Structures are given as structure tokens and as C-alpha cells.
């Protein structure tokens, strides 16, 4: 039986898609007044970025999770925390689902277009890590043409030109870049010899090498200064101010340096604000 109704499939499709398109344009994060009024702030953290945040025996721990504990004592409102894998974190802050990402978001020029950063929480220059038994890599120039593993969407991708320039000075060039959805997979592939080195912040790599000294060995810096910070949606200035006051208070009362020592092995002297050039 042929259908003689005026509803074409395409027409129905368009009618269904229109409201979805309208939604996407109305996202907004709560500012400090709204947070105070509703009584809670939503915080998003990662689950597999040791030593910043990870899960041990089913409980979130690491530097940032202990900072969240300190924030719970400091803030006059409730802190609601959600734990997400990295790919959803910045999208969640940019769409206003979460008020702030309390994770190690490396400050880059590109990210400042959609996010505002708090004061840096650590010094995180990028280093490379290699297999301990791989004697072909002794310094930066040996990285010429070798395969590198990094996390997809990670800040290091935007700083690759720095390593490229370092290699070019020695007459070499950057090899193949393999991207992983998170760093544990990148480390595993390095151990399996599918890549030759992995680039991450010195903090993460020190933790890795301390845990598995027989497999991995820390190399040298492959970028200039780089700082991780927490991120709020661009333009949420009063929330940013509140969080910067919180960080300043934790520096002053000694909590933050103690946590840095505990999780990163050293306390850093950090700038109050930093504008990334790359």
C-alpha cells in the first residue's frame, strides 16, 4: 500500500534536527553569584592522570583531589565533583555543564580562546621518556625520525614546533606522531616498542619512572616553560577571582607547597598569573 501522506522522511528529519541545533547555541556556565544562590559548584576532575588525579582502591586521590578537599573546607558552598576521562573534560567546561575543571590543564594560547585559567598549580615542562633498554636515544638529537606517542588533544601537540626546531638545529626532523586517548596507553605502547619515546610533563614522567624504573627512563626537556592550571569558561571572571584567592590562600597557609612536595617530589615557586605565548 503506497503512502499518500504529506509527511516526507526528509521533512520529519529536519523537524527533529532543528531543536537540537537551537540548543547548542544557548550554553552558559554559572557565575559566582549563581553558584552562591544555588548553593553548590560543580567541579570536574580526571581519573587516569597520575599523580595529579587518579583512582586508588576505588577512591579519587592525587594532588588535585587533595586540593578539592581543601576547597571543600574553604568554600562557603557545597562542592559537587564528577570524574570524567580527559576527552569530555574541556567540552564539559566549555558547554557550561561544569563550572571548573580541577585538573592539570596545560595553559596554551589556543585554549585561552575558549577558557580562562587560574594561577598555575605546578611547573610542568615537557620531557621525553624512553625505554630503559633502548641505547639508541641518548640526547635530543637522537630523537631524529623516531616515533613519538602523545595524548590526543594534549597541550604538547601545539608545542611540537619547539621540538621540531631543536631537532632542525642538529639537522634532524620529527618522526611520526602517534596520538592516544590517554597516557597509560601511550606508555604501554612505548614498552611494547611500537613507539620510541613519549612526551609528557616532567611531573607525570617522574611518577611513571619511579613506579617502573626497570622499563622506563627519563630523558631531557623538549619544550620551554609550561604550566598547568585549572580552567573555567571564558569570561567567568568572578569565579576565576574566587579560585585565584583560594590558590593564594593555600600557598600562604602552606597546604599547597606541602601537597606539591607529597605528589610531585618538590614545591614550586609559581607565577600568580601567566600568559601562554604558544
Amino acid at each position, binding site marked *: 500500500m503506497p503512502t499518500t*501522506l504529506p509527511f516526507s*522522511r526528509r521533512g520529519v*528529519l529536519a523537524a527533529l534536527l532543528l531543536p537540537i541545533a537551537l540548543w547548542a547555541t544557548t550554553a552558559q556556565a554559572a557565575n559566582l553569584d549563581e553558584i552562591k544562590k544555588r548553593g553548590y559548584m560543580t567541579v570536574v576532575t580526571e*581519573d*587516569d*592522570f597520575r599523580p595529579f588525579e587518579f583512582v586508588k582502591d*576505588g577512591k579519587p586521590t592525587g594532588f588535585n583531589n587533595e586540593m578539592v578537599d581543601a576547597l571543600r573546607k574553604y568554600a562557603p558552598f557545597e562542592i559537587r565533583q564528577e570524574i*570524567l*576521562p580527559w576527552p569530555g573534560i574541556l567540552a564539559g567546561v566549555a558547554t557550561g555543564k561544569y563550572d571548573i575543571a580541577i585538573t592539570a590543564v596545560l595553559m596554551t594560547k589556543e585554549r585561552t580562546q575558549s577558557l580562562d585559567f587560574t594561577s598555575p598549580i605546578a611547573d610542568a615542562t615537557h620531557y621525553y621518556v624512553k625505554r630503559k633498554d633502548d641505547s639508541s636515544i641518548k640526547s635530543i638529537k637522537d630523537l631524529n625520525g623516531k616515533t613519538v606517542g602523545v595524548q590526543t588533544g594534549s597541550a604538547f601537540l601545539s608545542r611540537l614546533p619547539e621540538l621540531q626546531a631543536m631537532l632542525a638545529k642538529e639537522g634532524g626532523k620529527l618522526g611520526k606522531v602517534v596520538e592516544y586517548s590517554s597516557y597509560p596507553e601511550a606508555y604501554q605502547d612505548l614498552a611494547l616498542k611500537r613507539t620510541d619515546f613519549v612526551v609528557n610533563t616532567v611531573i607525570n614522567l617522574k611518577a611513571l619512572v619511579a613506579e*617502573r624504573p626497570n622499563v622506563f627512563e627519563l630523558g631531557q626537556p623538549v619544550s620551554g616553560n609550561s604550566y598547568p592550571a585549572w580552567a573555567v569558561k571564558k569570561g567567568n571572571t568572578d569565579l576565576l577571582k574566587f579560585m585565584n584567592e583560594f590558590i593564594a590562600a593555600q600557598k600562604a597557609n602552606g597546604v599547597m607547597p606541602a601537597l606539591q612536595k607529597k605528589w610531585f617530589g618538590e614545591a614550586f615557586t609559581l607565577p600568580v598569573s601567566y600568559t601562554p605565548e604558544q
Partner: protein
Amino acid sequence: MSHADVLSIFSGALTTLLLSIAGIALGLPLGLGLALARWAKVPLLNQVVAVYVSLLRATPLITLVLLIFFALPTAGISVGPVTAGLIALVLNTAAFNCEVWRAALLDLPKDQIEAAQSVGMGQALRFRRIVLPQVWRTALPGLINEMSQLVKLTPVLAVVGVVDITRAAVRIGAQTYEPLPPFLVALAIYIPIVYALVSVQRWVERRTTLREAAA
């Protein structure tokens, strides 16, 4: 890997099981409803369902769950990770179930319906006594197939923060820097879950065959 690590994978298994069971329990009848709307050629609903099925079969589950999780709050509806995951699972599996049910409905001989009409059976009674008992048996293998796919689709929901078997294993690997042992434990848990589903199918099929032989 510590004792607590294994426990956390088992707690992930509970999440996987509950989400799968809820997804099946909601998606199965919803799929049947959609298939009936198409089979009976209900005006407008027929076209809407056809578009829905095409759209949902073309949308990767990961895209769907991200859309639900991040887009719904902007419309003022707040959903947690598990709720968003369940909605995405149900919407997805209902579309596939709809086609399995519809295939079984199309396979049902017309004279069965006409015979039921001729003895004065009403629509509801016809469906209960004649259509459903025959249709579900044709649909069963396809439905079980879709259910076992659904169990294995649940790790996708991790992207919005649902901690299922696989995500629990990933977390342990990230903490110990030894990802292989937790993945082996995870695999050892998936196998019996899917095997249980297939066993249910075999049991139901055997039972109906025995009943028919006795009749």
C-alpha cells in the same frame, strides 16, 4: 593489582550488568512498539519511526551519549552520567530492536491475521494470542544478538563518567602503570555475562520446541 583493585572491577561489572539489564528491559518493548507502529502503518508515526530508526542507526553511540550529556543541561534538563548513558543505550538499542521485530512481523503470514479476524478476535486479543507468540520466536535470535552487542557497547558510556568494567580496568592500569592484568580480569568477566545471555536463548528455544512436540 591489589585485592581492592579486583573488587573495583567487580563493582564496574555491577554497573555494566545493571545498565545492560535496564537497557534491554526498556529497549525491547520500545523496539516492539516502534515496529508495530510501522507494521500497522499508523499515519505520521510510521514516517517518524522510519526517520528515528535511520537517524539512530547512523549515530555512533559515543556521539549520542555526549550529545545527551552535554546538550540536555543547556535546555535546563540536568542528567547524571548513568542516566545519560541509559537514555543513549535505550534510544540506540530500540532502533535496532525495532528492525528485528519488524522483520519478524513482516514474516508472519497474512492469513493468520485473517483467520483470527474471521473468528471475531479483536485487535488486542489478536495481538496477544496470534501475533506475539509467533513473532517473538522468529525475533529471538536477532534480539539476543542485539543484547550481547549492547553489553559490549557499555564501555562507550565511560566518556561521560560511567565506570563500567572496562573503565575500572583502565583506572587501575593508570594507577599501577601495568594495564594488562586488569584487562585480563575485565575480559574474564565479560565472557560469562554474554554466555549467560546465549544460554537463556538456548533454554527458551529448547523449551518451546519441547512444548510443541508435546502439543
